[in-house]
């Protein structure tokens, strides 16, 4: 038995996306920049894909730039807004403590280049409020970057409201929508979004391709020097098969977005209810304002990596925010940001289900996690101390 419950890491490509890509590998393989008809057929496919992705986001085709993925899009969005700000002497950026590292590490670099960065605290429910953003904006603020949905705990931020605050203050608003695109509705106009990053492999498209939306008038700084592809905003021959695959995957995801969300949320809630029955466990992130497929728990007295290895033995693909799984000394910055102590954060488990997940799989997941947690607790000195009253339960 194999149960894939790590859809936030990556997703299986849809048949539609694979089929859409194939002709662009060995039939229409011309370079979109070539003058002859064969190249121009590739150019047409490129622009067709751009138009279809734009339709899914509610933007114009010319406002989209293809990138190598979500990380590059995040880097470029923030670098571009910073460059625009610096020209006006504005060198302050507002973001949150639980952004993806593609955002946080870029901000760290900018700090070294003389920018000031305010990282907003996240409440225990994993949400940032528009009021926090409003209060953090200064006269020299050039950018607010708040993710649409968190990649670990799945909490969905009030993006439209934050966008409105930024628009009113005349500050650019970027949102990392890598986990949201294809799963939650996006309409950049009414949501007051100036810059948005997405990645195809999170919605059943291919890996290594993403896009950056930049509202018309927001000039992008190119990170890669070279040819004039993407109107000079991103050099390098376009990855046409992947771009076509991304368009097909996004269209398909958006066409079934509501029905998928309803079905997957119901499975998610069953999974949450089942895991919540494990004593001394806690759900991470708001129970309602979260991605349809995201479940994230902490279990007291155990460590996440051993949990993952034993679940792997039962055929389950999952992830954890423990330090041992990240290769660093500290557990997930997201779990720390919502106030989980280190020892609790080490015992975290993220299960991210998707369109293919069945009710039977959810029941199997609940049983497997319950068994493994109980087994690991039986050999844990931490658990013994908690149960004997020598130490006090935190959760």
């Amino acid at each position: 038995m194999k149960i894939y419950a790590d859809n936030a890491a990556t997703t299986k490509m849809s048949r539609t996306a694979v089929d859409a890509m194939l002709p662009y590998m060995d039939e229409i393989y011309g370079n979109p920049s070539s003058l002859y008809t064969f190249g121009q057929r590739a150019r047409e496919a490129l622009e067709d894909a751009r138009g279809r992705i734009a339709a899914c986001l509610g933007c114009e085709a010319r406002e989209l730039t293809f990138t190598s993925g979500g990380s590059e899009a995040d880097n470029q969005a923030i670098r571009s807004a910073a460059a625009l700000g610096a020209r006006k002497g504005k060198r302050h950026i507002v973001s949150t403590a639980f952004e993806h590292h593609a955002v946080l590490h870029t901000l760290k670099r900018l700090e070294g280049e003389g920018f000031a960065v305010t990282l907003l605290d996240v409440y225990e429910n994993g949400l940032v409020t528009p009021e926090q953003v409003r209060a953090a904006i200064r006269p020299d603020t050039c950018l607010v970057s708040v993710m649409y949905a968190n990649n670990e705990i799945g909490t969905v931020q009030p993006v439209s409201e934050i966008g409105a605050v930024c628009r009113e203050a005349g500050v650019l608003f970027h949102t990392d929508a890598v986990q949201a695109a294809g799963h939650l509705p996006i309409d950049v106009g009414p949501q007051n979004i100036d810059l948005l990053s997405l990645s195809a492999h999170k919605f059943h498209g291919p890996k290594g391709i993403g896009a950056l939306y930049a509202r018309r008038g927001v000039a992008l700084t190119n990170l890669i020097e070279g040819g004039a592809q993407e109107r000079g905003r991103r050099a390098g021959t376009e990855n046409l098969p992947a771009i076509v695959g991304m368009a097909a995957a996004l269209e398909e995801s958006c066409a079934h977005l509501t029905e998928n969300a309803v079905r997957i949320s119901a499975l998610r809630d069953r999974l949450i209810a089942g895991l919540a029955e494990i004593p001394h466990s806690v759900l991470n992130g708001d129970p309602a304002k979260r991605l349809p497929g995201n479940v994230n728990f902490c279990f007291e007295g155990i460590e996440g990596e051993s949990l993952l290895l034993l679940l792997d033995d039962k055929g389950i693909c999952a992830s954890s925010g423990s330090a041992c799984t990240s290769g660093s000394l500290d557990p997930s910055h997201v779990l720390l940001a919502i106030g989980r102590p280190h020892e609790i954060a080490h015992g975290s488990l993220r299960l991210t289900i998707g369109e293919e997940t069945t009710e039977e799989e959810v029941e199997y997941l609940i049983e497997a996690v319950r068994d493994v947690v109980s087994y690991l607790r039986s050999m844990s000195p931490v658990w013994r101390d908690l149960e004997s009253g020598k130490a006090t339960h935190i959760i």
Partner: protein
Amino acid sequence: MALYSEKVMDHFRNPRNVGTIENADGVGEVGNAKCGDIMKIYLKIRDGVIEDVKFETFGCGSAIASSSMATELIKGKPVSEAMALTNKAVAEALDGLPAHKLHCSVLAEEAIKAALKDYYDRQGVAYDPAQFPDCAHCEGCGR
């Protein structure tokens, strides 16, 4: 390539000597939950020989496997031999550990030594404190 050797996975999946010992002659606990690993070793010693050893571990796969292997390496051995156990020996017996997991084998050595120190203390045996490293070298925890 898998993250861990077959040996590590074997000791992780089927850990030897898990549990506690009532009225143990020596008990040692090292590590910190904040760092993500704690090992506790229980020793039963008769006539200078480690008659029985048990462990409890909170930690990752390699921490559990290192504890299991360390207990196997000292079980039935004289105390003097157990005192000579090194983290290197534990890691080698496991057919190696990934570089960032070597501290798990260090922890296993320290846990055994902490239990032996406790045994010496209880028996009133004199010893050189320098033989027993504390885990202060680990920057990860503020123990």
